[in-house]
């Protein structure tokens, strides 16, 4: 657990800091702009934040921090849910501004008392004269603020009000607030920042012309959430820094939830967190999932049970089977041998990761420049493809290799150069040179470059020749020669190199991008049970109810409940029978008929054992059971009582579910 929490904090610090950084650019701009703005109208900044509302919290919080640090303004952050009316809005605003005062000036009680007084007074003021009180408050507020702060900052600092979710504010409140504050703009320099989830059009639809003319709006665009995702994946998943890794399916699920459901980075992080929890909770060998040095230490002090666990891993078994027989015996019996081998294998895994990431990046540079992106545009797609199975066996990989072979024009050389540069920097920065071949690779590229230069020289010289001889015959001859030489000499050289390079990359891919599943002991580092994740994050309660009602055998393992082709099994629990009967009905259901049908079905079961004498009591019991089942269906929301006809209920679902 300790490791896990460490990991957690480590990861999330990384994520948060990253998010901060990505916003900082936008923030810088806004800050600068708030400093600059001092005009007659209320300056307003519209931040277009995108539909992932949950992530905005962090953005706006860090924005207010940045603003606070630059000691320009006092900041109040208003949320729509706190401000159903203008009264609440003003209250909240005052409260936050006063608190800001206290925070910044670190003054004590005096102001605080004032705050509470203010609030109480505000509560007393009736709804009728809220307007008066609001103006009074603002008036009394304004001079005090000026007094308090002006001497320190030289010029009166603007007061920034951030509206967190512009769309969910009621128009009236917003309009009133803007109109009111526009009247006090001379005494109280206000700056408004709107957080907008959709598009800037919403300002105009929310605010009529008369109000929006009081504002001086400037638009700011924040990064799209997709870019966030790819950078997060880049920074967190594709580093050798964190020992914990995601399996292919899990990653797919997370990305799908992100792309098809909510675009929320926070949810992605939450899912990731859940993966970590689940991994460390369910996998007994996850203690070894830490940095290499630590892992080796732990591997040394493994208990016997843990060794048994290791032996039980499928990947380890595969490894054992591939060994010679004496070694097999040793592996299966002696713990010390297992420990030794485990350390060795863990080290292999780490080395594999380091190589994997760099080669993956390299391949990405290649494939992302191809037309039509057969292997995907983003590095995450490539990553998924590599994790899924052996990438060189896929059609996409074949086609991309073919494309790479054809595409190699001389301008592609510069592109290759670029990716070499990336690799150099990454190999220098991210890991100590474990991959000696990279250098080889580099020199080959350099040669290629030199080759290109040579060719250039050749062509230049030939052109010079061409200029010298003006004879028509000679010209023709040299041209032919030129052509010939180009075809024979240059092309072969170039092509050979090209093939060589591509083949080399191919071999590189083959050796380094082996999917993690094929590695021994990958279970320790990889979390690969996507079903758990899907069930907990993206649950479908309706489907669960449906299967439980339709096919109780899924849950109750009784032979009597085995489904037999769609017909109503009369041995199912009451509610299932009632549900099945209700499925056969239209929009309205007659309760009497329903009851009759139910009792027919149930009687078929009871029939053999029930005596005729007690039929009245049985009847009552069946009636009671029916009532219970129907009210349960009502509770579940499948039916509701209908007033259209006496003793009818209306069905709320349609079709099969």
């Amino acid at each position, binding site marked *: 657990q300790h490791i896990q929490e460490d990991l*957690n904090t480590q990861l999330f610090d990384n994520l948060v800091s990253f998010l901060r950084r990505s916003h900082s650019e936008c923030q810088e701009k806004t800050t600068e702009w708030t400093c600059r703005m001092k005009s007659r109208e209320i300056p307003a900044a519209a931040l277009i934040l995108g539909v*992932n*509302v*949950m992530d905005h919290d962090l953005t706006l919080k860090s924005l207010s921090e940045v603003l606070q640090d630059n000691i320009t303004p006092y900041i109040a952050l208003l949320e729509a*849910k*706190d401000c159903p009316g203008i009264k609440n809005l003003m209250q909240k605003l005052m409260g936050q501004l006063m608190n800001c005062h206290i925070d910044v000036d670190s003054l004590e009680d005096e102001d605080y008392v004032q705050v509470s007084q203010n609030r109480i007074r505000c509560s007393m003021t009736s709804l009728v004269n809220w307007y008066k009180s609001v103006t009074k408050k603002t008036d009394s507020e304004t001079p005090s603020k000026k007094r308090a702060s002006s001497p320190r900052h030289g010029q009166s600092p603007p007061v920034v009000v951030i509206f967190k979710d512009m769309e969910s504010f009621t128009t009236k409140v917003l309009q009133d607030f803007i109109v009111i504050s526009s009247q006090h703009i001379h005494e109280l320099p206000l700056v408004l920042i709107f957080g907008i989830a959709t598009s800037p059009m919403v300002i105009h639809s929310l605010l009529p012309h008369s109000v929006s003319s009081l504002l001086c709006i400037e638009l700011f665009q924040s990064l799209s959430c997709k870019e966030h995702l790819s950078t997060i994946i880049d920074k967190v998943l594709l580093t050798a820094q964190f020992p914990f890794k995601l399996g292919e399916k899990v990653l797919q699920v997370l990305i799908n939830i992100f792309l098809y459901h*909510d675009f929320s980075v*926070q*949810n992605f992080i939450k899912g990731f967190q859940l993966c970590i*929890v689940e991994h460390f*909770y369910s996998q007994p060998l996850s203690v070894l999932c830490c940095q290499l040095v630590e892992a080796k230490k732990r591997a040394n002090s493994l208990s016997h049970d843990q060794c048994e666990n290791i032996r039980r891993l499928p990947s380890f078994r595969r490894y054992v089977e591939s060994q010679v027989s004496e070694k097999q015996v040793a592996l299966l019996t002696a713990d010390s041998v297992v420990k030794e081998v485990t350390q060795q294998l863990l080290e292999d895994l780490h080395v594999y990761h380091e190589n994997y990431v760099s080669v993956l990046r390299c391949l990405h540079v290649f494939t992302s420049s191809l037309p039509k992106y057969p292997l995907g545009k983003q590095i995450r797609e490539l990553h998924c493809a590599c994790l899924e199975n052996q990438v060189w066996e896929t059609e996409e990989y074949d086609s991309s290799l073919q494309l790479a072979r054809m595409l190699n024009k001389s301008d592609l050389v510069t592109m290759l150069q670029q990716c070499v540069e990336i690799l150099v920097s990454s190999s220098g920065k991210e890991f100590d040179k474990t991959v000696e071949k990279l250098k080889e690779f580099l020199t080959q590229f350099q040669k290629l470059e030199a080759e290109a230069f040579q060719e250039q020289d050749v062509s230049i010289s030939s052109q010079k020749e061409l200029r010298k001889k003006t004879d028509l015959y000679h010209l023709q001859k040299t041209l032919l020669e030129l052509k010939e030489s180009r075809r024979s000499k240059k092309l072969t050289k170039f092509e050979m190199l090209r093939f060589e390079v591509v083949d080399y990359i191919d071999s590189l891919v083959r050796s380094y991008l082996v999917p993690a599943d094929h590695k021994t002991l990958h279970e320790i580092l990889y979390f690969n049970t996507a079903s758990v994740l899907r*069930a*907990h*994050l*993206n*649950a479908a*309660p*309706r489907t*669960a*109810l449906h299967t*439980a009602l339709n096919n109780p055998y899924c*849950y*109750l*393992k*009784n032979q009597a409940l085995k489904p037999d082709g769609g017909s109503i099994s009369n041995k199912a*629990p*009451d*509610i299932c029978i009632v549900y099945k009967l209700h499925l056969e*009905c*239209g*929009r309205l*259901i*007659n*309760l*009497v*008929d329903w*009851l009759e049908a139910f009792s027919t079905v149930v009687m078929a079961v009871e029939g053999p054992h029930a005596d005729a004498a007690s039929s009245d009591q049985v009847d*009552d*019991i069946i*009636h*009671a*059971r029916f*009532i*219970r089942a*129907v*009210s*349960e269906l*009502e*509770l*579940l*929301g499948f039916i509701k*009582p209908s007033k*259209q*006809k*006496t*003793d*009818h209920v209306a069905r709320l679902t*349609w*079709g*099969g579910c």
Partner: protein
Amino acid sequence: LAKKNKEDKMTNLVEEYFEAHSSSKVLTSDRTLQKLQKRRLNQQTLHDLLKKAPLAYAAEIEELNQQHVSLFSKWMLQLHLGFNIVLYGLGSKRDLLEKFRTSVLQDSVHLVVNGYFPSITVRSILNSVTEEVLDHIGTFRSPLDQLEFISKKFKEDSSLELYVLIHNLDSQMLRGERSQQILAQLSSLPTIYFIASIDHINAPLMWDQAKLSLYNWLWYETTTFSPYVEETSYENSLLVQQSGSLALSSLTHVLRSLTLNARGIFRLLAQYQLENKDNPSYPGLSFQDFYQQCREAFLVNSDLTLRAQLTEFRDHKLIRTKRGADGVEYLLIPIDDSTLTDFLEKEDEDA
């Protein structure tokens, strides 16, 4: 391919919807429960009867429960890591949560919210948090203020921990937008842990993205198949005698205590209403006509006495007056015809 399949399914669903709702005319038989020669069961007898009926597949259900119980320690871990847990699936999850409470939460501060209880409100939840957990006596102007207070307290004192178990988070009283918002904010506090159960098929509709992120749910499927005893006891079913409308027993009870003339007056009105029961536009008996009839039967001797009598009926909710389009007062008995027939039959027997 999968996508296309899904699309197909979607269009099918859409078609099914319109099929189900296409014809405004619904063909069902006209039989009603009244015609069924059987007494209606009331809550008590229903309960007794159900107790007699054996629970089917008890062993299998027990096995299912065991599976869920084995998850308890995992839930605790996840709760402490900032997730909240929501349980869904068929069957009452009350016993399961109760077991969780008794086995795991024994000696920690916890709060149980019975969402199915028809008079529960968010305010009462918040009150129990402030009064019993925080020992704060005092009232708050709005739930929002109260929430602020709670969150301040909890943030100040990180040793304060509270487990909140909510049965039926999707019940009638709690499904409103505002109450969900408040509960979501409450659940987002780091030291308050939520475990809730939902049953309604459309329960997830009440959460938007913002609320979902506040709740930070982890979904657990806990299909128990156990009957919803407590939950449905408040659900007024059509088949059970409703306590809200006037029952035969209460009707006779009230009339027993009246004078003979008063009983006669009511009888007269009832008879008249039954005679007109097939006339859908029957507005009720006008006061003047009624007065006339009562005079003829020597039940009243003046306008005033009849009015006094009617006032008494109205106080016991035995009659309802309605003003017609012409300004005349019409009298109606707000009881369904069958009960009224039963009543008259009984009266005849007694007489």
